[in-house]
């Protein structure tokens, strides 16, 4: 008994285990503190890396947006190798089982670096990659169809053929171990051009004063085709002049008949060439002046609405207090000066008078958009173009007349001496509107000319299409129409989401 008590009270040998236990506890505490100190910087690092990855993904969307501008969208849908159904056009999409994404490279777009590292940086600073696909995935397999991404019916053109101007871009940014993805739907606005001269509106009043050389030609002119060619080199022929089907209410005759009445001599009729409304072959005269509902007032208005919705679009306001004029010179036809034909005290718009507007070139096309002021008297000229002027892209004059009073024929373009030359599309649209190619002018539009009157009660004597020009050439050009419609100003991001 005494021995047991002695053993219980004996504390010898206890110090070491106690010291070890204390050391273990302290070590655990130290390790915990050290671990916390390491985790928090890692959290910050992850946050920073994720933000960088997202910025890289945004850079990818911007890169792709620029890359597809001015290009045929179909050229991207088979991937960089441009061979359908190979690995580079079978990438995964956000829709399970639908591997139709095409890798984007810089083989199609102009002056653009390849995806990967940002310019001037190494891949250690992060990379981006982009895929593109058509909005062609129909409902099925639990997926509602691409209309839930685009807001419009699924493109029936399939994987490799865009028919509605909409594609879906997915950009992936990677920085370290962080990855972020952004999906953006890109829409390019369509305008179905059906003739060298289209008068789709509710009036098609035409005045033809043949005082010089004139041609309205629905055959397909390439940009470089010389004026002296007997047959242009393009392959997509259109009508010479197209009108709306039906009867013009204020005259009681068809729109087509109204236009044809302006060509009241054989000499005038011979100035119109293009696709025959009868058999589609090349012809001249009344057979290439035809009613055709491919383009309507509503499709023109829809196109303009979407153009105006582009954040990059600048609409220049002309008013009766400040009717605007562009005056160019032979030396600088692409940068005419903005001035007013009226009392300049009424001008307080943007850009200011005196500004030289850049009207673009075929490699850098521009949207030049003038909006005028409603004038029920039909006498308001929303834009007057004078001197020597040249541009490329789309020229719009809305709710006012376009008056071309250029002169001098100081430019020789494709073998013609001209003073007003436009590569692309010229649209005059709205209420009480029309275009006058006035006496002394020498004009050419190589692309398409559209005069769209949106009201039906304009008084007689005011014309949607009037020519007194010294020389005039209105020529269909698919090359220039495509150039005008594929430019960056005509495409926009309609929806944007981070996956």
């Amino acid at each position, binding site marked *: 008994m005494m021995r047991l008590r002695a053993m219980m009270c004996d504390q010898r040998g206890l110090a070491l285990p106690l010291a070890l236990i204390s050391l273990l506890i302290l070590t655990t505490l130290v390790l915990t503190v050290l671990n916390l100190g390491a985790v928090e910087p890692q959290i910050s690092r992850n946050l920073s890396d994720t933000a960088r990855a997202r910025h890289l993904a945004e850079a990818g969307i911007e890169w792709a947006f620029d890359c597809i501008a001015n290009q045929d969208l179909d050229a991207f849908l088979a991937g960089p190798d441009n061979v359908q159904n190979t690995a580079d056009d079978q990438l995964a999409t956000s829709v399970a089982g639908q591997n139709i994404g095409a890798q984007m490279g810089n083989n199609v777009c102009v002056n653009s670096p390849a995806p990967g590292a940002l310019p001037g940086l190494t891949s250690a600073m992060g990379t981006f990659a982009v895929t593109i696909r058509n909005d062609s995935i129909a409902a099925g397999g639990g997926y509602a169809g691409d209309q839930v991404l*685009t807001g419009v019916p699924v493109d029936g053109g399939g994987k490799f053929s865009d028919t509605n101007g909409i594609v879906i871009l997915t950009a992936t940014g990677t920085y370290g171990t962080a990855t972020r993805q952004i999906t953006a739907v890109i829409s390019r606005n369509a305008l179905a051009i059906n003739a060298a001269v289209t008068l789709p509106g509710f009036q098609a009043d035409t005045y033809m004063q043949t005082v010089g050389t004139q041609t309205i030609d629905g055959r397909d002119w390439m940009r470089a085709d010389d004026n002296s060619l007997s047959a242009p080199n393009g392959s997509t022929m259109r009508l010479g002049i197209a009108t709306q089907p039906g009867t013009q209410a204020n005259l009681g005759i068809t729109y087509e008949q109204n236009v044809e009445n302006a060509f009241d001599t054989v000499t005038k009729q011979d100035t119109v060439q293009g696709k025959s409304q009868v058999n589609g072959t090349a012809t001249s005269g009344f057979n290439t002046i035809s009613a055709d509902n491919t383009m309507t007032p509503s499709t023109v208005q829809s196109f303009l609405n979407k153009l105006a919705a582009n954040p990059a679009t600048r609409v220049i306001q002309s008013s009766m207090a400040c009717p605007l004029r562009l005056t160019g010179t032979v030396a600088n036809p692409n940068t005419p000066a903005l001035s007013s034909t009226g009392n300049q005290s009424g001008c307080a718009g943007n850009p200011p008078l005196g500004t030289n507007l850049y009207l673009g070139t075929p490699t850098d096309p521009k949207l030049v958009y003038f909006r005028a002021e409603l004038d029920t008297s039909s006498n308001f000229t929303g834009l007057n173009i004078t001197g020597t002027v040249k541009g490329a892209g789309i020229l719009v004059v809305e709710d006012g007349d376009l008056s071309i009073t250029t002169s001098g024929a100081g430019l020789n373009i494709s073998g013609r001496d001209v003073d007003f030359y436009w590569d692309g599309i010229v649209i005059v649209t709205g209420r009480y509107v029309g275009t006058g190619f006035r006496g002394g002018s020498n004009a050419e539009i190589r692309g398409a000319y559209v005069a769209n009157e949106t009201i039906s009660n304009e008084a007689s004597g005011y014309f949607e299409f009037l020519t007194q020009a010294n020389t005039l050439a209105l020529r269909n050009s698919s090359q220039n129409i495509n150039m005008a419609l594929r430019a960056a100003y005509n495409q926009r991001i309609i929806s944007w*989401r981070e*996956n």
Partner: protein
Amino acid sequence: MIEEIREAGYLPAGPTCPGAPATPCPPFNYAFSAITNQSATGLTIQNDWNANNTIQTTSVVDPISGGNRGEQVIYSFADGQLSRREMGVDAAPVVLASGIISLAFTYLDQGNAVTGTAADIRTVTITMTTQQSTGQPQVTMVHRVRLRNRPTS
């Protein structure tokens, strides 16, 4: 929160221009505002995830992820706490962070002017001051978020 504000206004159908040509566009009509119920201490984010052109208060199926999502997300700040509620998904607000000294939202239009009109909001500025614990330094963060689905025009 910043990511959700950046995405606010997702609307696959896009805007409309019903008055044209009598009333030319822009400005355009969006079916709903990207940000609504905006105040200095809270906001509601709206997205049309299921592309039916309306905002629903019940959850909808996201066509991309396949998961349920709310088309309205409410952020609010009170008593030092930032809360989030995804309508149709969360039964009640969920506290995201506490210990916030102050938080203020400011709303800017396309000209970067302060606006009180929901339909005109194009940018949201968030100013938040936090403090880890009493006696620790206060940190103020300012983040300016442009709404990607409401382009300026």
